[in-house]
């Protein structure tokens, strides 16, 4: 899509014979990409080891968990909603999956005598549970008309509570080797990155090439237009939030695989990171505007930033300040694409 859009931008302007203007147009449209490239160049100059293959994979792996969540969030925000529950859903689906993915000895605590289960069981459990919770979010807000903010804020607390109850507050560890293998590598490529890639492709197709995707844009862009065109808004909203919850489940699997243990307090605050990644990538809270590549770039901006600040040895407190500033500046630069009159 990004390619097509570039072509479009080129074409639209090319027809007017302004090649230079076309370049400016692209720069504006993909402002955030240039911000990212700038950051990468800046960091590599100061710390050449930033660009080692290993570190690049590190950065990608680091962006995988909240990047996957940002994909689901892109659908939600594009439909003019918000999902504050994804962090807690990650924790809840994560502890459930982990409890089903413990090695034989440890499993007994939760499901005595069950023995070791094949990997597919915890994976499916996380995905389905995530989708179910998401569907409840979507159903709540579409059938009762309460703001998405409230429905998902409630779910944020509720899911966290259940995660605590399920585990008694302690982390669940001793995962099977098959499970922690998910945090490892396939050849040189980290498996979290592969899973992330697959999710990017699926979400991209979903948003750009299915009727569901078109409905997401229409619901966010102009819900009345969607209604009068015969779009089943309620059903689609449920699906949107279910997809977002499902991706939180996928993120939980990656999390469990990487960390080897899931804590009921895990991923606290990740909802804000996921929303930030999505927003940095240009998805608008006003609805109707959102792209998958934007979410991916937004997640990368955050992980490159964190990785870079660590490499540069910036003091922990200053890291927070600089991170906050750079997020704001990045979006300001990106904003210029929408700059019109005056």
């Amino acid at each position, binding site marked *: 899509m990004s390619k097509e859009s570039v072509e479009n931008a080129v074409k639209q302007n090319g027809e007017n014979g302004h090649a230079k203007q076309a370049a400016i147009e692209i720069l504006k449209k993909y402002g955030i990409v240039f911000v990212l490239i700038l950051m990468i160049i800046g960091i590599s100059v100061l710390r050449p080891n930033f660009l080692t293959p290993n570190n690049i994979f590190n950065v990608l792996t680091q962006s995988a968990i909240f990047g996957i969540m940002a994909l689901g969030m892109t659908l939600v925000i594009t439909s003019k909603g918000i999902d504050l529950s994804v962090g807690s859903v990650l924790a809840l689906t994560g502890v459930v999956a982990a409890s089903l993915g413990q090695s034989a000895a440890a499993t007994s605590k939760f499901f005595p005598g069950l023995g070791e289960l094949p990997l597919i069981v915890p994976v499916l459990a996380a995905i389905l549970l995530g989708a179910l919770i998401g569907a409840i979010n979507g159903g709540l807000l579409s059938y009762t008309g309460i703001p998405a903010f409230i429905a998902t804020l409630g779910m944020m607390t509720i899911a966290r509570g259940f995660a605590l109850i399920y585990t008694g507050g302690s982390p669940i560890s001793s995962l099977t080797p098959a499970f922690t293998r998910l945090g490892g590598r396939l050849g040189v490529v980290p498996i979290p990155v592969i899973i992330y890639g697959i999710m990017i492709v699926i979400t991209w197709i979903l948003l750009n090439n299915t009727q569901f995707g078109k409905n997401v844009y229409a619901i966010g862009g*102009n819900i*009345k237009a969607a209604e009068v065109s015969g779009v089943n808004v309620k059903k689609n909203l449920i699906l949107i939030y279910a997809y977002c919850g499902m991706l939180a489940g996928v993120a939980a699997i990656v999390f469990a695989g990487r960390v080897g243990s899931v804590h009921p307090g895990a991923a606290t605050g990740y909802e804000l990171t996921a929303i930030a990644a999505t927003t940095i990538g240009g998805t608008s809270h006003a609805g109707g505007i959102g792209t998958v590549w934007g979410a991916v770039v937004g997640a990368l901006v955050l992980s490159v930033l964190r990785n870079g600040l660590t490499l540069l040895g910036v003091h922990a407190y200053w890291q927070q300040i600089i991170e906050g500033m750079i997020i704001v500046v990045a979006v300001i630069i990106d904003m210029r694409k929408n700059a019109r*009159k005056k």
Partner: protein
Amino acid sequence: MTEQPHVLEMKNIIKNFPGVQALKNAELSVEAGEIHALMGENGAGKSTLMKCLIGIHPPTSGEIYFDGKLIENYSTADALNMGISMIHQELNPVEHRPIMENIWLGREPKNRLGLVDHKKMYEMSKEVLELIDLKEDPRTEMRHLTVAKMQMIEIAKAISYNAKLIIMDEPTSALTNKEVEQLFSIMRKLKENGKSIIYISHKLDEIFAITDKVTVLRDGQYIATEKTADLTVERMIKLMVGRDITEMFPKVACEIGDVKLEVKNLSNGKHFKNVSFQVRKGEILGVAGLVGAGRTEVIEAIFGIRSADGEIYIDGERVSIHSAEDAINNKMALLTEDRRMNGIFPMLNILQNMTISNMKSYVKKNKLVDHKRMKTDAHRFIETLSVKTPGIHQKIENLSGGNQQKVLVARWLLTEPDILFLDEPTRGIDVGAKAEIHKLITSLAGQGKTIVMISSELPEVMGMSDRIMVMHEGRVTGIIENRKDLTQEEIMRYATGAVEEKLA
């Protein structure tokens, strides 16, 4: 005409909203292959009746027969499937999506994998756009289109459903003659193919030009159905309003004073170039032109909400206006063209909508606002402009389009401006109210106010103005004295750029 079976019958339709009975006993019967006008004042319930039909608001009670079958409890999607489509009065663009996705929303063509087939969608859209003779790339995002083009897209969309019955709720309110003609030829084609059309418009000439029958609603009540050919303008108005309205364009000559506003060489590079004109006290300057001529942009620039180079003089003194606030301080007012986008505050009530621009004058010495005076003023204007509403605390969103427009007119009159810019001031306003607004404009001119009125309705421009400025592609092609013998053709020659007056 031979007797045709009724494709649609709506009987005893009642629709209640909280605090408002929008429809009390409305009726409508439409035959196959008929263009049927639905007429009534603003707030008569036309749109509501149509929304009942298309499944947006289920009626509180009453029966709807479509194709001879009783239909009940259906959604909009069901209605579309049954063969009813609708052009809505309020435009519903999904702004950041391409034209083609707007047209095919909810019924995208798919390939064998079940994925959306963009290529096919593109082709199909091209065909549809050809039908309405619109040369736009189907991949252009809706937000880049002018209101008129968006309206044409809505028309194209409604047609593309290939429905048996097409509802057109004020499709021409944003169109100029050229597009209206185009729409009419499409409608005739549809009629030939046996399709039925319900046509709503406040422009009487259109009703006579295109419709076969007219059904009139008043206050949500069915009044009459008659053959258009049997009707006269006077009778139709009487059916709608319940009384006679004599003067359509009550322009009375009033004393014209000194130059109030002078604009010199206004340009903004993109939309207009070297626009210069003068308007005097007590004068009405009409501004004509085709859609996209840049008229809106010019007055937005004068009003400070769009940047431009050039000079503006009021009473001979150079002024610098960089925001609407500056403009209002210079006693200017602007009634905008796009009511929904930059006119109304949908969720706010009438009181808030009406008083916002005049808020400064309600601030008392203790810095608090004087609610009592605000309410008195609001009530006064609801009365003078006969806004149809249960009260000043009604959300403006719940008013009919015409009544929303009246509230906006009131907003600006409250600021007691010296210079009024009116961009399509009577768009979507019924004949009765139109006459009232025209009377108001004239009386304002009579009080020595300076008025600049953009209108795409040539009869209105010619009926109301002292002079007419015509624009073409961002340039002023002529400023004409309004004479008795001025013809529409003459204005159109300037508007199409066929002639250009040498301006001093």
